[in-house]
């Protein structure tokens, strides 16, 4: 991220949202809302003094509530640019009008409580979507795991924050309820994944490997600890993946093939009742901490942004690629590319691969003076076109618009409107040719005359 921020040809618009996208490949007019930061970045040096003195502390979103953050904050330590914003919902000065500590303490006078959202429109040639994923809300679906009311039933992401040396616990794995070190940790995989009754039908793909990593971390960091992993299948297709899983087994993690049907507290233990389906017996584990490998779901608002940019999503809300095998990086909309988990559950190596591919696709597009397009596209016969515009709402790619032409009629020059097809956007689906009442639109290569000739050849 730092390298990207410093690149002369990259303009980083952090803390901004896309409001609207108009235009087409090569000519996207994008309206961007730059949210009010309340900090003048031309003055701010990123010294961080304001963050240490802010009196309004709220649960940190990045640490999933395990730690706190001030109301003038950077989302996480490595955030780029390394300058804070004020959270207008929790800032005392912005909510109640009293406080102003950050403004008093800022050595460069960068705090500006009157900052407003700014809306800009810029033109871009291509768009790469990389909106990522969220975790499945297991608290709403899995009553048997307590609907989220037991503090020591956490998700893999909570665990990840705890295991991180710069995280809220400084890398120490603890029980959120009492801060004690857990000795027995139970991991449950496929919570929401591969569960078409309570969750999603698909496999979330990254969980088998990160659960193996977490189990390894428990055994590594906590002396005399035991890790139990309840699984449906262990799926480790990737370079050196299976070796890592086997190493975790060798380290002493106990893998149990079966689901946990119930978790309930007894004393300060969490009793996990499950099944070992390989021996066909019920298993009960008294755990100190339970870590759920919850399903990946499309990030909140991703369906809205897909609508704004103008491409489709699949049945689960993931961004739809143009072809599952041959065009996994493109969308059906020209000039819009996909990178990472927004297209479907992915781990880091796969995300990096797809993101690199998307970047190269954009470079290839921009490297040419002219764009290569499919020749089998719609063409309007202007003499026949009545300018009714019926074809415009039929086009799924927004490729048709009306234009004004001049022509001579009875010795006079008149102006009238006719349809015109944008050859960069038309995908040759043919919807407009069927909708055209005067028969003015033909699909090149599949014209009405050509098809009738074929019919004649077959029938006569």
């Amino acid at each position, binding site marked *: 991220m730092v390298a990207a921020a410093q690149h002369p040809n990259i303009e980083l618009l952090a803390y901004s949202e896309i409001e609207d996208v108009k235009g087409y490949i090569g000519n996207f007019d994008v309206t961007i809302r730059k949210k009010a930061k309340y900090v003048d970045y031309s003055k701010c040096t990123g010294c961080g003094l304001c963050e240490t003195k802010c009196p309004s502390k709220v649960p940190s979103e990045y640490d999933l509530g395990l730690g706190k953050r001030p109301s003038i904050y950077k989302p996480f330590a490595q955030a780029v640019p390394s300058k804070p914003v004020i959270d207008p919902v929790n800032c005392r000065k912005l909510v109640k009008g009293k406080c102003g500590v950050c403004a008093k303490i800022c050595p460069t006078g960068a705090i500006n409580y009157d900052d407003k959202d700014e809306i800009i429109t810029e033109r871009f040639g291509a768009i790469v979507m990389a909106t990522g994923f969220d975790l499945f809300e297991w608290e709403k679906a899995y009553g048997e795991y307590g609907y989220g009311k037991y503090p020591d039933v956490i998700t893999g992401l909570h665990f990840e924050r705890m295991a991180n040396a710069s995280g809220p616990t400084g890398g120490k794995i603890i029980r959120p309820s009492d801060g004690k070190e857990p000795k027995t940790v139970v991991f449950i995989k496929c919570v929401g994944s591969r569960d078409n009754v309570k969750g999603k039908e698909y496999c979330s793909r990254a969980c088998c490997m990160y659960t193996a990593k977490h189990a390894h971390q428990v055994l590594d960091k906590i002396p005399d600890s035991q890790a139990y992993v309840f699984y449906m299948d262990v799926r480790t297709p990737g370079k050196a993946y299976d070796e890592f899983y086997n190493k975790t087994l060798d380290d002493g993690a106990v893998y149990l093939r079966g689901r946990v049907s119930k978790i309930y*507290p007894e004393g300060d233990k969490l009793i996990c009742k499950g099944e070992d389906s390989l021996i066909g017996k019920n298993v009960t584990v008294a755990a100190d901490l339970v870590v759920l490998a919850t399903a990946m779901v499309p990030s909140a608002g991703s369906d809205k942004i897909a609508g704004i940019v103008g491409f489709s999503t699949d049945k689960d809300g993931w961004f739809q690629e143009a072809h599952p095998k041959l065009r996994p990086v493109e969308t059906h909309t020209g000039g819009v590319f996909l990178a990472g988990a927004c297209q479907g559950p992915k781990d880091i190596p796969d995300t990096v691969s797809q993101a690199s591919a998307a970047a190269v696709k954009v470079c290839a597009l921009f490297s040419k003076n002219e764009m290569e397009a499919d020749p089998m596209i719609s063409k309007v016969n202007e003499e026949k076109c009545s300018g009714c515009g019926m074809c415009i709402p039929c086009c799924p790619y927004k490729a048709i618009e009306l234009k004004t032409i001049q022509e001579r009629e009875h010795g006079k020059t008149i102006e009238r409107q006719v349809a015109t097809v944008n050859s960069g956007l038309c995908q040759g689906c043919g919807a407009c040719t069927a909708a055209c009442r005067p028969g003015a639109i033909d699909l090149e290569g599949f014209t009405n005359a050509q098809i009738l000739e074929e019919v004649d050849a077959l029938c006569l």
Partner: protein
Amino acid sequence: MKYAYFPGCSLDATGIEFGLSNKLVAKKLDLDLWEIPDWNCCGASAAHLTNHMLALSLPARNLAIAEKAGMKVVAVPCAACFARCKATSEAVKSSEEMQKKISDIIEMDYQAKAEIFSLLDVIGKQIGLERIKAQVTKPLNGLKVASYYGCLLVRPPKIVQSDDPENPMTMDNIMAAIGAEPVEWSFKTECCGASHVVTKPSVGKDMIYEILKNAQINGAEAIATACPLCGLNLDMRQKQINANKGTNFNIPVFYFTELMALSFGCSGKDVGLSKHFVPAEGLIQEVFGRARREEA
């Protein structure tokens, strides 16, 4: 509103307190329960282990009688009867072929026009907590009750359509309305192992033991249930479990309508308190004493 009422076999036998207290509570709440005439056994778990069509047809006959009498709603107190009646109604609603087949077997027309509800849902959701509160004359102040739903009131979720298959609250809300304190516990919807107690007692008793243990750990002084089999099991087996496991369980088990009737001012004798295996009168007396102390 008039409800067709299917008491089922248990309410005249092992669950007699349930039957007695249902009638008392219905009277207080102006609940017009019309007992289906000439009703037969619902088949419970025995029939559906024997023959699928038998299991659907036994309740269908009772429901057809109610339908013929023009009843719109059927209230079923026993959890097993409720689950069987509801399953029959859903099967008939889902397929015309099934409707014809069942009507042929029972030699009566049955269209599944009437809605089937458990008595718990009728009281907790249709009558509502406000009307219950209005009838309370002797609140059960402070009585810590573990509301136990068992399996058949909440499963299978698609058929019985309870408020929540994992953490139902209907009975808890009723208990709070009559002045008791519903405890948070984790075994609300566990199976009590009813059928195992006959065929393989060691398995069944272990299941009861776990339920009693969790109720005790969470501070329950009493257990409330809406199922005659659960009630019987939890109540009758405590002594044996104490002998086998060396425990000292002494948790009276009530039908939820018993506790309601008591809070509505009915006497322990009318409710059938003396019928319990684990003596319950002492606890109830003590609870009313508590209430008086608080008033004073």
